[in-house]
């Protein structure tokens, strides 16, 4: 396992570039599929990844292990940057998309689409999520991958706000069991 992630960040904060390289080598292969799952474009994902690790290098001194694990520290950054990227791409896209096409932007990929694409999608899905029910997975994906707020999720799923909040809490409890080693 080598140096714990938290120690790596502390050494990075002291300006140790080898620590940065080790930090990158440990976390980039884990963060990359996550970013790719959100932005769905390899070039965009590579850009986002570069921003995320550059910020990690610059911000290493601000890391406080009492406030969270290194994994939470890097994934929170990655999520914010990836969702920002999706929104920026969408805004740029809007100027070129004809009105009629806008209705289909949010439509799910039809079944029987490109098999290779679907196989890749499956690989990007975090395996822990596979242990949730379909409904629990959906709500976590809407919040964490799509960046929707509780109200937007309630509107999308046509469910009361209180139900959405409770469902998120229950899904997280189930997820906790899934990631806790037995």
């Amino acid at each position, binding site marked *: 396992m080598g140096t714990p992630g938290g120690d790596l960040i502390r050494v990075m904060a002291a300006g140790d570039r080898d620590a940065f390289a080790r930090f990158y080598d440990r976390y980039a292969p884990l963060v990359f599929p996550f970013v790719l799952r959100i932005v769905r474009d390899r070039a965009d994902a590579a850009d986002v990844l570069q921003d995320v690790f550059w910020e990690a290098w610059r911000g290493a001194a601000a890391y406080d292990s009492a406030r969270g694990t290194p994994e*939470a520290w890097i994934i929170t950054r990655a999520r914010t940057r990836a969702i920002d990227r999706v929104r920026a791409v969408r805004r740029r896209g809007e100027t070129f998309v004809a009105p009629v096409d806008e209705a289909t932007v949010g439509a799910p990929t039809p079944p029987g689409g490109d098999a290779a694409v679907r196989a890749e999608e499956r690989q990007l899905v975090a395996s822990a999520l596979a242990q949730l029910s379909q409904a629990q997975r959906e709500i976590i994906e809407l919040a964490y991958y799509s960046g929707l707020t509780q109200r937007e999720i309630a509107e999308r799923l046509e469910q009361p706000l209180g139900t959405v909040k409770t469902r998120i809490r229950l899904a997280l409890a189930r997820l906790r069991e899934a990631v806790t080693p037995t």
Partner: protein
Amino acid sequence: MSHEPFETLAAVYAAGALDGDDLAQFEAHLPGCAECQAAVREAQDTLARAMLSARPQTPLPAVREALVRRVERTRGAGRRAWLTWAAATAVVAAVAAGFTATWVAVRYEARLGQMARETAAVKERLARNEAALQEQVALYRGAVELLRDPATRVVDLRGQGTAASASGRMIWNDAGGGHLFVAGLPPAPAGKTYALWTISGGTPRAAGLFGVDASGRSAHRIAPEVARGAVGVFAVTLEPEGGTPAPTGPIVLASK
């Protein structure tokens, strides 16, 4: 307020989905509540571990190379010197950060407002498109229904006079009314409109007024009430807006 609702809010907050009053309330509560801080930390760690559990994929080596080059450059400038400089200018930076935060917040507010307006505009446009499509579908469905009846006739109308290049087709049923489809008709001049007449036994009967779109097309529905008795001839004339009891203007389309 009991503490229980905060435990739910902590989960939603960790998932990044808290908004509105809930967010304000929770952020006011969080700094003073060790229990919620622990709950958020725990939930964030759970999410992080879950999200990092996909099959690892090594990104292109170019990403690593570019980062390592950038990191080298920050070292080249002397990180210690940079730190000293940073400490010396920390106060200035803090003030600047304050201004920047305010500026960013203001910009974000504006941006959010603009996005909300854009979304509303798109929704409205979609609703309009949908209404127009439904209207069109209803029209075509009516025409198809009419065509199922063996008693229905399809009559061609020819352009007359100045509108010689216009054409029309009437789907007509003496009991069920009809549908008129027109093409190549110039838009009616200001204060004028097109009027359809059904002529039986030499007597014209008003069968509605219609305009054409920019491409000279129109689809006009004739209600069953208008169809009283067998019609011999169909004609379209140009009339003053509001219509007239009997044709007065020039004939632009007529059946044989």
